């Protein structure tokens, strides 16, 4: 433990190369199983399409529910993809080698999280305006919807990485991950869905978007360290 903390504070110049190395590696792995990425996006689209069938196709109600539904589906899609972040590397021992590498572990994990967001959160955010149209969200609302998702989904990946690392190798991993992480997602959900609601109510979404941005900064600074601590606990 002591040696690990020494090596992680040793070389500030190794941070960016570490992020880049993990990012490139995980992106390469992700693009070699492109079908899996498509399945995740389809999950998002299908969950969103189920809500009008379960409730009502009435336009006013849809416009009220829409942002919330799109965000809850984004939370679930993020949750569904989280085990991929560390589980395969943990199972075949790669994660142990990653932890032993000269790059600081939080930097490597930041790279992995960034790759996770680029392959799961970003497609969801880009797809959202199209689905927003189905929910009678219009004009500025669509722009804000996408902007809020662009700022909010990285927070989901960052917080989720902590939960994914804490539940590594546990029997009830998947459902336990949901129990640990979904309560922590609540503020993101509120500010994210609230941004579009605020546009609809004519209040302007600046406050919501700023808070999401602030949350992203805090999570980006803090979460990789917590996730790195959790990975080390799992590897012990």
């Amino acid at each position, binding site marked *: 433990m002591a040696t690990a903390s020494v090596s992680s504070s040793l070389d500030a110049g190794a941070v960016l190369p570490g992020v880049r190395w993990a990012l490139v590696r995980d992106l390469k792995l992700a693009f070699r199983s492109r079908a899996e990425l498509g399945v995740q996006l389809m999950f998002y689209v299908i969950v969103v399409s189920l809500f009008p069938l379960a409730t009502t196709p009435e336009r006013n109600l849809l416009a009220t529910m829409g942002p919330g539904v799109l965000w809850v589906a984004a939370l679930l899609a993020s949750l569904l993809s989280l085990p991929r972040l560390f589980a395969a590397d943990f199972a075949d021992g790669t994660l142990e080698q990653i932890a032993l590498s000269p790059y600081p572990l939080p930097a490597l994990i930041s790279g992995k999280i960034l790759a996770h967001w680029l392959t799961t959160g970003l497609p969801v955010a880009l797809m959202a305006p199209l689905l927003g149209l189905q929910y009678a969200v219009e004009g500025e609302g669509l722009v804000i919807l996408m902007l809020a998702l662009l700022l909010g989904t990285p927070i989901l990946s960052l917080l989720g990485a902590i939960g994914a690392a804490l539940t590594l190798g546990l029997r009830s991993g998947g459902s336990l991950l949901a*129990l640990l992480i979904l309560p922590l997602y609540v503020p993101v959900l509120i500010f994210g869905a609230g941004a579009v609601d605020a546009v609809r109510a004519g209040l302007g979404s600046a406050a919501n978007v700023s808070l999401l941005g602030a949350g992203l900064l805090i999570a980006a600074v803090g979460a990789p360290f917590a996730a790195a601590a*959790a990975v080390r606990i*799992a590897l012990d």
Partner: protein
Amino acid sequence: MTSSSWYRYSSPATFYPIAGRLIPWFGWAAAVMAAIGTWIGLAIAPTDFQQGDAYRIIFIHVASAWMSMFMYVVMAAWSALFLGFNTRLSAMMAQAMAPTGALMTLIALVTGSLWGKPTWGTYWAWDARMTSELILLFLYMGVIALRNAIDDPRRADRACAVLSLVGVINVPIIYYSVKWWNTLHQGSSVSLTAAPKMAMTMLTGMLIMALAAWFYAIAVALYRVRVIMLERERGSAWVGELQEVKSR
């Protein structure tokens, strides 16, 4: 006090008998306080002119709600001590507090909704305080579930400590986000802050009940931590030398 003498108390072998001596004090204090508080609450405090006698549930509701939030912070503080100093007793204390904290949260939620029915006309309103209390219950459940899912107690200690710390940073953020969400959606139709000023006896009763909850929580946490110590250290010499273990 030198730092070495503080470390002495962080050894389970030293703390086990101390905790055993403290439990009756806190337990009896809790019982006496609860009796006085109940007497003030049910017999002395005047009937509220708006809510009638229904408000009397406040005496248990407020005490449990305070404790539910406070205990999460204390649990996180023990977790931070554990991660910082690697003292296993701190982790055991954190483990011992989680179930009581969850219980307090549950009591606060149940009494809150029972109180809500006669006063607000509904068992559940998505009021900021109720919602954040519900999420607090989820956070406690998460810590307890994570502990149960991990077989190795040392890994469980550290994983739960990290989760508690992440949770405690989030608690105020969750509270304010829910509060803000609530004002955006509902207006303040159900506001407790605008309630009329409380009579002095009501306040006294409430504070005494809060002290009772406090002492109860300490007594139960100490009791549970003794059980955890025995369970985890059952192979060690000091446990074998205990009178109650020998006599078995």
